[in-house]
């Protein structure tokens, strides 16, 4: 596995060798001793000098050596260095021996790096190579399908959309559910993490480690229970100096629908059948001397003539609203090392035009990572990253201000413009094409972090360091309802037209980590490593909101142009702190039996006065079976490790900053000050607690051709934060308390197989799967069930979180065409009552299985990879279908052809109820659909042009590639629309439950991009 990753990583990256005084040339080939495969990217150096080169893709190197050179050193990560005396040879072929102990492969874990085989915890590593060069600006989305047990659901298709990351199921009801993000050792505040995922440049990332079990996350104490994502960025140590320029260009468009809207003729007939005369027809009548008539009392010839007139003026709103998106990216990277200094510098410009006007993302990112060894026992490093992102945003709401509602709901016969050239406000009372131009929303984010680390290693085995990390997030939003725009006519003050809002926030946080690591051995067989950490983090947030009305023109949008305050100007501030002590002890006997224990104590300003401090612990053990004598003889087992862990972690993200206090807040009445009781005190308030247990096995077989891991986990969350309802007679509605419990149990599996490794040809397939079972076990005293705020599901002991609770649809009464429902007791009734909603066992937005699989092929510079992701067994309430396939209530707007399949005569079965323009299409399980899908998320075909050709034009490496995103979707349950459902609707749901429902959010897109990487 590790070797494969390295090969991929170094593939096509060829460094320049320093040219110096030379006498002769030596060439040769470097292979792996065990399998004879050529090794690209092996460092070839002259002993006692800084000069050197690397092997190319075929393992061939050429080096010019001065006369005084005596020895060549061949080094490659994961292999034992080889020194060869030059003598008089001109060709030196070397077979490198794999470092048998596998002890060189390290992984980033909490607060330190550890040798992979020594780790007794469950974690997944995603290499930078796997997420580089993807035309998706947010890193969280790139993790989809890459790591076992990590469910990544993209919010929607918006440029820069974030993703929901759930590690081993949903771990909380009301508190945060996202994992903690740690970038280069700096803990990122939870509310800033989404911005970091979108502003960091994926190409700067060396690897991402996802910590899943207690042994790894309890090091992060009160912030660790949802898992931890550790991002490590690149440094210059792996390569000689080199400059790489990358360019990408691509287009994208909305994924095609799997349903069709009614044609104008179908729609007009449907309206007629339902007894609805649309305003355009009314207008037609009055323009044609039939003003005193209606659709229903004219002759059929007159009617047809009117329809023909409307059909003639019809057009496809989708074509008018949408456009082809565009993606363009430029990147320059310079990295390398000079003596004892490593550097990595990058700059990227990323631009994406969305699939409709008013939707864009433009981003600049820059990075400098520097490290230097000042003295053999003292080094210093600094990582700095800064990104600025500007986006134009659309309304994600369920009305015609949202172009993705409008494109489905405007009737085709409604023109964009009136005869006089003004915008037609249509039957939806708003023209989205006008709104996209005249109600613009822009957001700007400036995000960055800097971390400075002093590293001392005064005596052998001891490492003392102090790291000061800072994160910064600045957010600015402009929203302008321009004077004279249609929307202005609804919401504005007629005497002060136009309304402009500027709001934003700044969040600065620092994270100071002092730590000591001491490694020592007692005798030959007892090995110890001790970690001690003291950490303090402080977060300072401030925000503002300004709003004015009365603007002279749509071009003058700053607040100083406004005539009058809207009365909503405000600023706010908040601070939270967390102070921690942490200790971890690793012990192993003969590098065979490993035991680790950790303890962390956190205190936070967010916790109540009576619960200020929390303690977290973990214990884990592993047994490296392949080190045992009885397995040493079996040559095809490279690694076989059994491991287990238990421990606790907390989740403090759901607690408000001052939630434990009894408070009076200030406001206004008649523009004078008010003071009002705003919060019930709870001095016991504390973090949610999670007990995590995990057993697993890691293996590498047949010289690493087959690698994998298997885990069974059982996680128990207690002290869940709930808004416990109070009697409203107290004047309060609720208080946040720690009550309730739930469990997540499941299995993670990951497997990677090199099916073919033959000469230059390599074919790998990989896959991962997670099965998770969520079960709510306890709610607050006396409460048996809590309805979610969207009115679709419940949190109820004995059921998975957010299990759907809906009225069951019982088909039509085939005699009358009336809609029928099952009441609570299962009897059929024609009376809809929301009281008849019942819990639909086994139907929830939680998937039964999810994961990813894919393949990589490479042959002589050609690489082909395909990555699939899948989600199986989850249910989604399909409001899109309910809207477009209505029971007649949707006659005023465009409808899908499926709506025509309704009851027409006695005896009709399996049809929609007899439609009625005044009927409500009720929320029933008729619109609850299974949303399993398998999606070909990414296909990349790349070709690295042979070095001997490119070198002629002084180019060390040239790689061209094309990438396709979302090229294929398998939708086995015929989900109406796109089965990959994330946010549903950002503005129209009372609460966001990922994957619960569709409601015309930004559609996912299909992208095709072309790219080229040139290395000098």
């Amino acid at each position, binding site marked *: 596995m590790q070797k494969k990753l390295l090969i991929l990583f170094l593939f096509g990256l060829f460094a320049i060798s320093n040219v110096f005084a030379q006498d002769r040339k030596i060439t040769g080939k470097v292979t792996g001793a065990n399998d004879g495969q050529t090794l690209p990217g092996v460092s070839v150096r002259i002993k006692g000098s800084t000069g050197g080169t690397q092997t190319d893709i075929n393992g061939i190197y050429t080096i010019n050596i001065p006369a005084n050179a005596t020895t060549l050193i061949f080094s490659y990560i994961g292999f034992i260095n080889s020194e060869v005396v030059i003598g008089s040879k001109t060709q030196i072929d070397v077979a490198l021996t794999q470092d048998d102990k596998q002890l060189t492969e390290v992984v980033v874990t909490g607060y330190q790096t550890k040798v992979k085989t020594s780790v007794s915890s469950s974690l997944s590593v995603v290499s930078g190579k796997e997420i580089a060069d993807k035309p998706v600006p947010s890193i969280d989305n790139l993790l989809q399908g890459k790591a076992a047990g990590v469910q990544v659901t993209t919010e929607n298709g918006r440029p820069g959309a974030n993703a929901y990351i759930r590690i081993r199921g949903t771990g909380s009801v009301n508190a945060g559910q996202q994992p903690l993000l740690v970038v280069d050792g700096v803990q990122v505040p939870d509310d800033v993490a989404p911005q970091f995922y979108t502003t960091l440049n994926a190409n700067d990332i060396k690897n991402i480690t996802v910590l899943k079990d207690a042994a790894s996350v309890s090091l992060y104490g009160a912030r660790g229970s949802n898992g931890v994502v550790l991002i490590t960025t690149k440094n210059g140590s792996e390569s000689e100096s080199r400059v790489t320029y990358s360019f990408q260009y691509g287009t994208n468009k909305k994924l095609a629908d799997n349903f069709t809207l009614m044609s104008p003729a179908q729609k007009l007939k449907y309206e007629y059948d339902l007894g609805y005369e649309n305003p355009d027809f009314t207008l037609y009548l009055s323009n044609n001397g039939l003003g005193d008539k209606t659709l229903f009392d004219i002759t059929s010839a007159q009617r047809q003539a009117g329809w023909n007139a409307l059909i003639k003026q019809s057009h496809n709103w989708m074509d008018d609203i949408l456009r082809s998106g565009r993606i363009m990216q430029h990147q320059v990277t310079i990295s390398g090392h000079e003596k004892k200094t490593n550097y990595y510098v990058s700059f990227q410009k990323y631009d994406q035009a969305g699939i409709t006007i008013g939707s864009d993302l433009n981003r600049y990112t820059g990075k400098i990572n520097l490290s230097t060894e000042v003295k053999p026992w003292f080094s210093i490093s600094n990582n700095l990253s800064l990104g600025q992102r500007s986006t134009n945003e659309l309304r994600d709401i369920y009305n015609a201000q949202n172009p993705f509602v409008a494109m489905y709901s405007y009737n085709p016969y409604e023109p964009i413009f009136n005869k006089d050239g003004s915008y037609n406000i249509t039957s939806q009372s708003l023209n989205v094409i006008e709104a996209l131009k005249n109600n613009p929303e822009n957001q700007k984010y400036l995000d960055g972090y800097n971390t400075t680390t002093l590293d001392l290693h005064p005596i052998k085995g001891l490492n*003392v360091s102090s790291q000061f990390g800072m994160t910064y997030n600045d957010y600015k939003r402009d929203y302008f309802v321009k004077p004279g725009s249609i929307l202005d006519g609804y919401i504005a003050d007629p005497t002060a037209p136009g309304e402009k809002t500027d709001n934003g926030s700044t969040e600065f946080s620092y994270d100071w980590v002092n730590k000591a690591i001491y490694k020592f051995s007692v005798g030959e067989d007892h090995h110890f490593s001790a970690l001690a950490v003291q950490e303090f983090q402080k977060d300072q947030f401030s925000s503002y909101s300004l709003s004015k009305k009365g603007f002279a023109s749509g071009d003058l949008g700053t607040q100083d142009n406004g005539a009058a305050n809207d009365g909503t100007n405000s600023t706010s501030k908040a601070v939270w702190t967390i102070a921690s002590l942490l200790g971890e002890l690793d012990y192993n006997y003969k590098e065979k039996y490993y035991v680790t224990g950790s303890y962390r104590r956190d*205190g936070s300003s967010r916790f109540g006065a009576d619960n200020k401090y929390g303690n977290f612990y973990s214990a884990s053990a592993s047994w490296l079976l392949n080190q045992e004598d009885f397995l040493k003889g079996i040559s095809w087992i490279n690694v076989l490790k059994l491991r287990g862990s238990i421990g606790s972690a907390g989740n403090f993200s759901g607690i408000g900053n001052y939630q434990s206090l009894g408070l009076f807040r200030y406001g206004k009445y008649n523009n004078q000050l008010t003071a*009002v009781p705003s919060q019930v005190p709870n001095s016991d308030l504390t973090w949610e607690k999670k007990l995590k247990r995990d057993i697993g096995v890691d293996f590498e077989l047949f010289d690493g051709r087959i690698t994998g891991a298997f885990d069974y986990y059982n996680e128990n969350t207690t002290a869940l934060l709930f808004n416990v309802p109070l009697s*409203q007679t107290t*004047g309060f509605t609720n208080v946040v308390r720690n009550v309730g419990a739930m469990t997540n149990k499941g299995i993670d599996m990951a497997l990677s197989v090199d099916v073919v490794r033959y000469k230059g040809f390599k074919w790998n397939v990989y896959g991962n799967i997670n099965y998770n079972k969520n079960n709510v076990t306890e709610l607050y005293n006396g409460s048996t069930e809590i309805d979610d705020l969207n009115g679709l599901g419940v949190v109820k002991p004995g059921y998975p979180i957010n299990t759907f609770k809906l009225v069951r649809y019982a088909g039509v009464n085939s005699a009358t065409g009336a809609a029928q429902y099952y009441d609570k007791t299962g009897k059929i009734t024609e009376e809809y009552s929301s009281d008849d909603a019942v819990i639909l066992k086994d139907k929830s937005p939680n998937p039964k299985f999810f994961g990813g699989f894919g393949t990589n092929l490479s042959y002589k510079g050609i690489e082909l990879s395909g990555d699939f992701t899948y989600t199986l067994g989850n249910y989604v309430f399909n409001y899109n279908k309910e809207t477009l396939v209505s029971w007649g209530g949707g006659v005023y707007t465009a409808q899908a052809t499926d709506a025509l399949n309704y009851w027409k005569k006695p005896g009709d079965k399996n049809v929609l109820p007899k439609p009625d323009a*005044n009927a409500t299409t009720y929320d029933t399980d008729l619109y609850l659909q299974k949303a399993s899908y398998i999606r070909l998320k990414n296909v990349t075909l790349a070709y690295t042009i042979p070095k001997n050709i490119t070198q002629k034009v002084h180019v060390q490496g040239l790689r061209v590639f094309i990438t396709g995103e979302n090229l294929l979707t398998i939708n086995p349950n015929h989900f109406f629309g796109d089965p990959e459902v994330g946010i549903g609707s950002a503005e129209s749901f009372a609460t966001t439950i990922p994957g619960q429902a569709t409601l015309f959010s930004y559609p996912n897109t299909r992208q095709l991009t072309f790219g080229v990487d040139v290395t000098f």
Partner: protein
Amino acid sequence: MKKIYIYASIALLGLGISSCKKELTQNPYNAVNSEDAFKTPDDFSNALRGAYAAYRSTTNFAVYYGGQDGGAMASTPDILADNLILNQQGRKSQQTFFDFKYQPNNTWDLWGNAYAVILRANFILANIDHLGAGDFKNNIQGEALAVRALAHFDLLRTYAKSYTSATDADLGVPYVTSTDPNALPARDPDKKCYDLVVADFEKAATLIGADNGVGRMDKAAVEGLLSRVYLYMGQWQKVVDAATSAINTAPDANKLADTVEFPKIWLDASERDVLFKVKILDGDNVQIGVGYEQASPAGVKAEYSPDYALTLLYTTTDTRKRSYIGQTVLNTVKYNYIKKYFGRAAGAANVVDFKVIRMGEVYLNRAEAYYNLTKPADALADLNTLRANRYSDDTPGAETGQALYNAIQLQRRLELAFEGARFFDIKRLNLPVQRSSFGDKADGSGIAASVKTVPANSKLFELPIPLAETNANKNIKQNDY
């Protein structure tokens, strides 16, 4: 050398730990601890305005005097009666009320909103002795008592039986006087609650000042509200006493409006007639008019139109007709809409103050009481006073007997239409809701109400208590749902 660095790093570590501890206590920048909220006289003024603000809206509720779609004193009691018809062009907000289909999980949460008002008043009353004796204290205490009484009264007329139909065993609502966030009170008897409302109002009337300015109650407002409470209780002489006191003590600025002043009331350009109103300003994020209509470039989209039969009761010389009812053309169809909450002459659309008690009502309360005290001459005098100030061509009427009574009730309906009185007036008189068969269009055509009658004293007159309350508080007995 190396050792120095080791010591230095250990020292650094120690420094870090000690400096962190005091950082673990943080206080908000936008709030004070409850214990520190009542220290100065200004704290009490702030808290009192906070109580009034809850009539308008709170963080959790805006369904009381500042309500829109979820239930509102401006519209719901008219929707629950015969004054309005659901407009098919609107958003069909509050249709549950219009169709009388409310259930505990889908009811008017005036409950939570009113008790938020009550809590704020109770905090003031619990801390009132932090103030030194004197007029300031008396006025604050009087206002807080009146605020508390009015909220309880609104709860009673919404969720409990009418006073005149209730037995001693029938339940009212919990009459809350504590600030305990964990209390789980049971419902007090209906009649006892009315007595407590009266007691708080009567005490308030002795303490409160004569003029507290716009947006706050004063002596005349309290007396005016008392006349309403006594009217609901059928205690006629007390109605007369309170109404007379209100009329006599009202500041000049709040005397009965004439036909010239009357239209200005609804633009908040005049304080005539208004004894107490809840102030709602542009920046308060409360658009009470949206519950009735929204202007659009295509025309005014009405949520509810005035019932056609009601519009016929307003004569063309009635100043109220022009102030209350507008007409629009939407998609080529003419509709009437409620204009009362359309907005001020300048400022945000649909933002106006909510008038809680007006002098017009006080005269009508007294007229009805005089009638019931068999003093028809006094009743007619009050009725004529009102009519003279409402009709541009008024000639004094001379009704007697039933005709006089009917004229009082007609004027009451016309005067208080779309102000949250109609449902409660029908209820207190133990009458049925009887709707017309007219539709939603301006000419009476269109789609009519599906529910045309609600029998007198139907269970539908006592709205369901919100499910959230009965779930959280097992001591609350639900109404008959």
